[in-house]
């Protein structure tokens, strides 16, 4: 939950700046080109190492920023650092990652590039993003229902 006292304008500016940098980075790096992604995943064939530099470059920068953040009590604009709570490597993580990988290999797009390529105006990109959001929502609902059912069963006599 966002800190209601955090500065909303400054937060929006930070988010906007972040978005601009991210979108530009995706286009410049080739992540928005399915053929580049599939070329990177084609380890056994005509391997295109390009995306290796993308991940390397991104981690090199962000790892430094993360270390800097460890010395701070709170984000610069207030609120709290939303550290991911989950730490277990479980079946859900692995199965989900496996499915995501297949989808990424098939379409050559992951969520970020898919959203950016909406600007290209193709029906294909719109279809991908729409289906992606809907499928994710449905999955969320099913997970919620399962969690509710599990807690009901555990409290039954």
């Amino acid at each position, binding site marked *: 939950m966002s800190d209601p006292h955090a500065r909303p304008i400054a937060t929006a500016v930070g988010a906007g700046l972040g978005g601009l940098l991210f979108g530009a980075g995706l286009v410049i790096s080739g992540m928005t080109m399915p053929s580049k992604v599939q070329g990177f995943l084609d380890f056994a064939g005509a391997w295109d190492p390009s995306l290796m530099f993308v991940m390397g470059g991104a981690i090199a920068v962000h790892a430094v920023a993360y270390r800097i953040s460890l010395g701070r009590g709170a984000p610069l604009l207030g609120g709290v650092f939303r550290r991911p709570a989950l730490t277990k490597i479980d079946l859900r993580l692995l199965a989900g990652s496996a499915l995501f990988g297949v989808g990424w290999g098939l379409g050559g797009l*992951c969520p970020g590039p898919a959203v950016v390529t909406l600007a290209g105006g193709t029906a294909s990109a719109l279809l991908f993003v729409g289906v992606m959001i809907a499928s994710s929502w449905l999955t969320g609902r099913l997970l919620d229902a399962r969690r509710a059912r599990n807690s009901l069963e555990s409290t039954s006599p």
Partner: protein
Amino acid sequence: MRAGPLPWNRGDMDAVWVWRGLAGGGLIGLSASVLWLLNGHVAGISGIVNTLAETKVRSERSWRAVFVAGLVLGGVLASAWFSDGLSAPMPSWPMAAGAGVLVGVGTRLANGCTSGHGVCGLSRFSGRSLAATLTFIGTGALTVFLLRAFGGGAS
């Protein structure tokens, strides 16, 4: 200008992609750093998009809407110099729909994607994100292998 006949460069990658990759990746890392240091949020696109689409809480929606708007605009601006970014061939409709389902379901289950796990998680040395990243790269590679072997390439 080619990157030379190195054995690992079988795809004949142009040397320019080393720089585009590092620069683009650096910008992505910088973006995630801005979002983290300023706002304390993980730049996991699947999570940001999902929450934006589903939340009823205005403060949760606002910054994500601005972020996504920036994402698209940033891509448009960059494509003025890098025209291949938004004009690349897209998957066929059946491929786009099928891939969309797998990406949507998979990232929801995994609680992250290439940015959330691959960039942010690995930058934190998260074991969970390492497992996720190796897995999706692994099945992605297997998928492309099968496509190239039996499908003759996508789109």
